[in-house]
C-alpha cells in the first residue's frame, strides 16, 4: 500500500530535479521536451518542461504517462505547476506547488538548493483516487527522508489482484518514514492502523471480518525488521484456526524480528501472545518459491492451561477424529520443530491432564509425563485412571523409548484393566503417514463378572485371559492377531480373527470367530436364569459381525460335545424356555400335563444352531426330524423321555432377544 504512494512523488520530483539540476545553461525561458525518461521501476513518457525566469518565474512540467512500480496505477497526463518560483539565498522556492493528473491532485511547497542538490518537498494534501495522503520529502544526495501520512486510506481495487483475494475492504491510517541514501532505502519505520478490514481468499481458506489491526515496525538494512502486529477486534480465519476478539479484550499480539533476503523470509524471533490462552515463542523460515514454502518452524509453548489451548488450537486440528470433542483440563508444555511440513522433533509435557470424550467413549484422568518424537529419548507417560466405554483402566506408567520414526516401550508394563490386568510386552507407534500402532501382551485375571458388567451383559461367571501376540491399528482398523482365550463357565472360549473397523465412526464394525469348548451348562443356565441344565456345551459362533456393537450376522451352533461323561439333566423350566425359543408352542404344556410331576429329565444330546442374517435367525438342531418338518433340539434319554423338536426355522432376531429376555425375567412354569 505505502510503496504505491511513496513511490509516486519522489520519482516524479526526481524528474524535476534531474531536469533542473542537469540543464547546463538556461536563459530566461527554457523549454525542453523528451520522449522518455526512465529509472529503476519507473518510466515517464512525453515529458515537456517549461521554465520562465524573470521577476515572476514559473515552472510547468507535463508528463504524458508515468509508469510507477506495481501496484501503483499508470498515471496519465500529470501536470506540475509552480506559478511563483523565487530564488532567495541560493534556494529555489515554490510556495504554491500544484500537481494534477487523472485521479490525482496535490498541493504543497518545494524548495531546491542547486549547489548542494538539496530538495525539500511537502505535499500537504495529496489526493489520489479520492484518498488523502500527506507526503514530505527531504532530499540531499547523501541522505534523504520520505514521509507519508495516511488518513483513512481505503484499499484500492487494484490490490485485489496483487494479493489474490476475492474481497478486500477496510481503511488504513498511519505514518511511514523511509530513510535512504544514493544506494536506496536504508531504514524505515512506521505505524499503521487498519480498521473495518475484511478480506477473503477465493478458496475461502483465509478470511477476516471487521478486523481492527495495528502494525508498528521498523526496518534497518543491516538489522532486518522488528514488527509488532496486534489483532484488537474482529474475526480472523486461517484454515483451520479461528480467532475472535472484542475491542474490550486485550489484543492478540504477534511480535517478530527477521529479514527478507534471497527469496526467504527468516524470522529469528516469533512471539505470539494470545492473552489467557497461550504465549508461544518460535522461529520461522519461509520460502514462497519453494515447495513446500514452510521450510522450518520452531514452536515453544511454556506450561499452559490445556483447556483454552485445546479449544482454540487443538480442537480445530482434530475435527473429524475421536479427539474432536473433549472436555479437557490440566496443563501442557511443548517444544516442536516442523520441517517441510513434517514434525521432526517434539517434546510434549503433560501435567495432570484430564481428557473426557463428550460421548463418554473414552476418558483419561491424571495424564502425566513426556512424549518425545524425533531424536532418541527415554521418557515416561502415565495416567491415574482411564476408561474406554465402560472398561476401566487403572493407574499406569509406561517407560518409553523414542527413536527416529517410532516410539516403543522399554520394558513390559502392567496396565490394570477392570479387576485384572493387561501385561503390555511390546508397544510401537510409528505415526509416519497414518498412525500405525501395534502392541502385544497378555490379559490376566479379568473376571467375567467385571467384563459382563462393563459390557452391559448379563452377569457371567468365570475369567477372561489370553495371549495377544499382536494388535495393529492403522488405516482406521484394529486387528488382533492370535486368539483371545476366555476362561468362562469352566470351559474355554477362543476369540480369533478379531477385527474392529472404523472404531471411532458412526458404525463401528467388529468381526470375530468364536469357538467354545466344554462349557458347563449349569453355570450358564444359572447365569441366564432360564431354568437349570447340567452337562457340557461346545460349539462355535463363526463369522460374527457386530455393527454398532449389535450382532447383525453370525453362524452359530452349540451342542453337547462327543465325549461328555458328565451328568446331563434338564429342568422342567429349561424345557419350557427352550421350547418357547424354538417355537414349538409347547409352552405351558409341561406344567399342566402329567409330566409336571417330574422336575428334571435326563437327555442324551442337545444341539441348537442359529444363522443370523438380515435380522432373521435360521434355526437348526441336532438333526431334522423323520418327517422333515422340524428339527431336534434335545434328544431325551431314559424315562420319562423327553425330546424337544423345533418347527419354526425362521425367527426374527429381535423377537428372539425379546423372548429370551422374557424367559429370563419370568418366574418359571407353575407346577400344579
Amino acid at each position: 500500500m505505502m510503496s504505491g504512494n511513496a513511490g509516486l512523488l519522489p520519482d516524479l520530483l526526481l524528474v524535476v530535479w534531474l531536469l533542473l539540476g542537469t540543464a547546463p545553461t538556461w536563459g530566461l525561458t527554457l523549454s525542453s521536451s523528451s520522449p522518455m525518461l526512465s529509472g529503476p521501476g519507473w518510466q515517464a513518457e512525453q515529458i515537456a518542461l517549461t521554465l520562465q525566469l524573470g521577476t515572476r518565474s514559473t515552472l510547468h512540467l507535463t508528463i504524458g504517462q508515468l509508469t510507477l512500480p506495481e501496484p501503483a496505477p499508470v498515471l496519465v497526463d500529470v501536470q506540475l505547476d509552480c506559478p511563483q518560483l523565487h530564488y532567495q539565498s541560493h534556494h529555489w522556492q515554490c510556495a504554491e506547488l500544484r500537481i494534477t493528473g487523472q485521479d490525482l491532485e496535490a498541493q504543497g511547497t518545494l524548495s531546491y538548493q542547486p549547489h548542494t542538490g538539496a530538495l525539500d518537498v511537502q505535499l500537504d494534501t495529496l489526493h489520489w483516487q479520492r484518498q488523502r495522503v500527506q507526503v514530505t520529502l527531504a532530499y540531499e544526495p547523501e541522505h534523504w527522508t520520505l514521509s507519508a501520512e495516511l488518513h483513512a486510506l481505503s484499499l484500492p481495487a487494484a490490490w485485489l489482484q496483487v494479493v489474490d483475494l476475492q474481497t478486500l475492504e477496510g481503511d488504513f491510517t498511519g505514518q511511514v518514514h523511509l530513510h535512504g541514501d544514493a544506494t536506496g532505502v536504508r531504514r524505515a519505520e512506521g505505524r499503521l492502523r487498519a480498521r473495518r478490514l475484511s478480506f477473503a481468499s477465493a478458496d475461502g481458506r483465509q478470511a477476516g471480518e471487521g478486523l481492527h489491526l495495528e502494525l508498528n515496525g521498523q526496518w534497518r538494512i543491516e538489522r532486518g525488521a522488528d514488527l509488532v502486529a496486534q489483532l484488537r477486534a474482529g474475526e480472523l480465519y486461517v484454515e483451520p484456526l479461528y480467532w475472535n476478539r472484542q475491542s474490550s479484550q486485550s489484543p492478540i499480539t504477534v511480535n517478530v524480528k527477521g529479514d527478507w533476503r534471497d527469496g526467504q523470509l527468516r524470522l529469528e524471533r516469533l512471539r505470539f501472545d494470545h492473552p489467557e490462552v497461550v504465549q508461544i515463542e518460535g522461529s520461522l523460515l519461509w520460502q514462497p518459491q519453494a515447495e513446500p514454502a514452510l521450510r522450518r518452524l520452531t514452536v515453544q509453548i511454556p506450561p499452559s492451561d490445556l483447556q483454552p489451548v485445546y479449544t482454540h488450537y487443538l480442537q480445530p486440528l482434530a475435527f473429524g477424529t475421536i479427539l474432536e470433542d473433549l472436555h479437557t483440563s490440566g496443563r501442557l508444555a511443548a517444544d516442536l520443530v516442523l520441517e517441510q511440513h513434517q514434525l521432526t522433533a517434539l517434546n510434549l509435557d503433560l501435567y495432570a491432564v484430564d481428557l473426557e470424550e463428550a460421548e463418554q467413549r473414552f476418558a483419561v484422568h491424571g495424564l502425566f509425563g513426556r512424549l518425545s518424537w524425533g531424536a532418541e529419548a527415554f521418557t515416561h507417560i502415565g495416567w491415574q485412571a482411564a476408561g474406554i466405554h465402560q472398561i476401566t483402566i487403572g493407574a499406569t506408567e509406561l517407560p518409553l523409548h523414542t527413536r527416529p520414526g517410532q516410539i516403543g516401550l522399554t520394558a513390559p508394563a502392567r496396565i490394570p484393566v477392570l479387576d485384572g490386568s493387561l501385561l503390555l510386552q511390546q508397544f510401537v507407534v510409528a505415526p509416519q503417514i497414518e498412525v500405525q500402532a501395534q502392541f502385544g501382551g497378555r490379559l490376566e485375571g479379568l473376571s467375567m463378572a467385571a467384563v459382563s458388567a462393563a459390557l452391559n451383559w448379563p452377569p457371567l461367571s468365570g475369567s477372561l485371559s489370553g495371549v495377544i501376540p499382536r494388535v495393529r491399528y492403522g488405516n482406521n482398523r484394529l486387528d488382533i492377531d492370535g486368539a483371545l482365550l476366555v476362561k468362562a463357565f469352566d470351559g474355554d472360549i477362543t476369540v480369533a480373527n478379531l477385527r474392529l473397523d472404523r472404531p471411532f465412526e458412526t458404525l463401528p464394525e467388529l468381526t470375530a470367530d468364536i469357538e467354545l469348548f466344554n462349557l458347563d451348562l449349569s453355570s450358564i443356565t444359572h447365569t441366564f436364569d432360564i431354568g437349570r441344565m447340567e452337562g457340557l456345551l461346545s460349539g462355535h459362533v463363526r463369522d460374527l459381525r457386530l455393527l454398532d456393537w449389535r450382532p447383525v450376522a453370525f453362524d452359530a451352533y452349540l451342542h453337547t460335545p462327543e465325549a461328555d461323561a458328565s451328568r446331563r439333566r434338564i429342568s422342567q423350566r429349561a424345557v419350557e424356555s427352550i421350547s418357547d425359543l424354538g417355537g414349538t408352542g409347547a409352552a405351558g404344556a409341561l406344567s399342566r400335563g402329567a409330566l409336571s410331576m417330574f422336575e428334571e429329565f435326563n437327555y442324551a444330546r442337545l444341539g441348537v444352531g442359529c444363522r443370523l442374517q438380515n435380522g432373521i435367525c435360521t434355526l437348526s438342531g441336532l438333526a431334522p426330524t423323520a418327517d422333515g418338518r422340524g428339527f431336534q433340539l434335545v434328544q431325551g434319554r431314559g424315562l420319562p423321555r423327553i425330546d424337544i423338536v423345533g418347527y419354526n426355522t425362521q425367527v426374527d432376531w429381535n423377537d428372539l432377544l425379546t423372548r429370551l429376555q422374557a424367559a429370563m425375567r419370568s418366574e418359571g412354569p407353575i407346577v400344579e
Partner: protein
Amino acid sequence: MTNVFWRTTGASLAVTLLLAACVTINVYFPAAAVEQAADRIIEDVWSLPPSSQRDSSSLPNEGFNMQVMTRGVLLLRDAQAQADITISSPAIERIRQSLAERYRQHLQGLLDNGAIGLTADGLVAVRDVNAAPLNQRGRITQLVEQQNRDLQTLYREIAQANNRPDWTAQIQATFAERWISHARPGWWYQANGSWRQK
C-alpha cells in the same frame, strides 16, 4: 405411516402373494417403495412434517414382487411388517440418528447459507466456503466427509437389510432425487454438473 396400511391390509395380501409367488416371480426395483422409504428417512433427518400418505391403491406391484423374492418364502410371524421395503435395522437406525444430529448441529446452517449443497448422486459437497461464517469454516471439509461416509453406509445398509446389495446404486439414485425434492428454498443442489438454487 406405511406400517398402518400394512397392518390392516398387508397380512392377507402377503398370504395371497405368497401363493402367487410360486407362479410368477418378477423382480423389479421397487422404486415407489424405496421412494417412500427415502421420504420417511429424509423427513426424519431434516425434521420435516411427514408428507401426506400416498393412496394405498397407487402402490405399484413391483414392491410386492420384491418382497416375495426376498421374504415371501420365509415363514414369518410378522409377515405384515415385511411386505414393505425395510428401513429398520440397527445399522440404519444408528445412521439415521447420526444424520439427524449432524443436520441439526451443523449442516442445516451450512445448507441455509449455501456453503454446502446437495449433489446429484445423493451426497453433499462444499459449494462456497466463503458463504459460511468464519467460525464454522474449520470443520466444513470434515463434516462433508463424515456426512458422505454416513450416506454411503445408509444406502448400502438399506440394500443389505433388504437382502439386495446390488440395489445400492439404485437406492442412492432414488435418495438423490428425494433429498433435492425435499430441499428447502434457497438451498443449493447440483444438476448437470452445475450448482442451482432451489
